[in-house]
């Protein structure tokens, strides 16, 4: 990608179940603090879930909150926080040159289920169905809510990419910046999935819904006794710019986008394919001009399903053989599976490693599954390393979508 403009991250805003800023999120990851609640899911009773507690009134009026969606609110909070972090002089930014690209796993389930419940209180008479339904459920909703809140008049849309969506949002933004379609991009991933019982019921009936008497231990990727996914909400939105633009305004550069790949299994709707995942990671490395040995942290996608974790580990063992400086971790063990936000949040949690050289672990491993054993897997306790210059962020999803995104510390070769 050397002939194309270099793309850098210059701002970040997030909300995760265990933190509403990068500092808080990172501190909890290094301290081994998971935060998973138990919520009452409509029709299903109590289940563990990752719940965000950001201040919804910080950037939105109460009327906006009433009319909009939960994921729109998450998106606005993250985008506004990212703007603040970026140091952009917003009043002087040409809003027509700003794009919003947000990855989503799904959208509209929450709002549709709510309306079905609403009209069930009125004999299922559709005249009680809200006129807000369509603007709430159009697929561009979260990105569109950001543009309305911030006065952005450039392009906005969401990227539906199952649980690979967080990476896909960032990749889309990088591509649009390289094409010159926009000068500034707000990009990442968002999710409100804990508010739809359908996601819980679907995973439960698939035998893939995580449970544990201690909710903070329910999400335990790579543990021999893992039993499925903990569904969470959240968001992480980045400010991306071309390097030259960032340098010209004296921006603080958090990281550089080095390479990426999105490919497809073309095999099964739910069972991942390690061969295609291996190809995806290899292609991302090739495009970044790197070898496996150049990667210092691999942020895994593993969701704590019985087969999915093994498949990813198989792919990683295929790629990262003889890589003594490569550490491997997992963030879902702290916050559950934030669905469309997962990839973007998991990358965020690792970015401070460029400065502090700590690698947060995957927690909740009481007994490592031998089939998930990998050299470099950081288990239960953070490790300090000599240097972290590169992060490879895996994010995979249903229908066989794979994504690998590589970011590097700015200024390293």
């Amino acid at each position, binding site marked *: 990608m050397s002939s194309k403009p270099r793309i850098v991250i210059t701002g970040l805003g997030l909300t995760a179940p265990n933190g509403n800023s990068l500092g808080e999120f990172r501190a909890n990851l290094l301290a081994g603090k998971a935060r998973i609640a138990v919520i009452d899911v409509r029709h299903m009773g109590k289940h563990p879930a990752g719940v965000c507690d950001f201040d919804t009134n910080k950037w939105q*009026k*109460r*009327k906006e909150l*009433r*009319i909009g969606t939960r994921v729109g609110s998450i998106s606005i909070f993250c985008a506004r926080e990212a703007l603040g972090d970026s140091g952009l002089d917003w009043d002087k930014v040409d809003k027509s040159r700003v794009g919003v690209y947000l990855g989503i796993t799904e959208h509209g389930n929450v709002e549709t289920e709510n309306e079905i419940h609403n009209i069930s209180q*009125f004999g299922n008479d559709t*005249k*009680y169905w*809200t*006129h*807000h339904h369509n603007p709430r459920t159009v697929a561009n909703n979260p990105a569109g809510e950001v543009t309305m809140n911030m006065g952005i008049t450039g392009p906005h849309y969401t990227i539906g990419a199952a649980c690979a969506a967080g990476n896909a949002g960032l990749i889309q933004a990088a591509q649009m910046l390289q094409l010159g379609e926009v000068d500034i991009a707000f990009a990442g991933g968002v999710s409100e999935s804990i508010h739809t019982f359908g996601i819980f019921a679907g995973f439960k009936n698939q035998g893939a819904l995580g449970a544990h008497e201690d909710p903070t231990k329910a999400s335990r990727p790579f543990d021999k006794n893992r039993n499925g996914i903990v569904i969470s909400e959240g968001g992480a939105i980045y400010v991306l710019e071309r390097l030259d633009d960032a340098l010209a305004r004296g921006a603080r550069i958090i990281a550089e986008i080095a390479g990426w790949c999105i490919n497809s299994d073309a095999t099964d709707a739910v069972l991942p394919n390690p061969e295609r995942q291996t190809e995806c990671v290899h292609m991302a490395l090739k495009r970044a001009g790197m070898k496996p040995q150049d990667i210092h942290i691999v942020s895994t996608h593993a969701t704590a399903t019985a087969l999915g974790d093994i498949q990813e580990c198989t792919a990683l063992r295929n790629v990262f053989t003889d890589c003594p400086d490569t550490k491997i971790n997992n963030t879902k063990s702290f916050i559950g599976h934030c669905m469309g936000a997962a990839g973007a949040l998991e990358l965020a949690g690792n970015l401070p490693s460029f400065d502090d050289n700590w690698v947060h672990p995957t927690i909740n491993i009481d007994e490592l599954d031998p089939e998930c054993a990998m050299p470099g897997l950081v288990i239960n306790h953070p490790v300090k390393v000599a240097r972290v210059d590169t992060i490879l962020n895996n994010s995979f999803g249903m229908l066989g979508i794979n994504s690998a995104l590589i970011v590097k510390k700015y200024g390293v070769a």
Partner: protein
Amino acid sequence: MTKDDIKQVVLDIIADIAPDEDLTAVKPEVRLRDQLSLDSMDFLDIVMELRKKHGIEVPEADYVQLASLDSCANYLHPKFEAKGK
């Protein structure tokens, strides 16, 4: 239910659908849209809440009757009376 009661019903609905608005000095004879930040979707919310909370239907042709608190009270009074309220 008196016309003043009906005005309060409408104000209570507006308080829910436009929670950022200051409703302490709403003039009953002035168009609501001229003194509050309300759009067409908000008026549809008023219609919906009248339907849900009070069983009162406002046909689309009559939406103009909801322009001010006074016109709301005049228009809705016989409908509330018909409901025995």
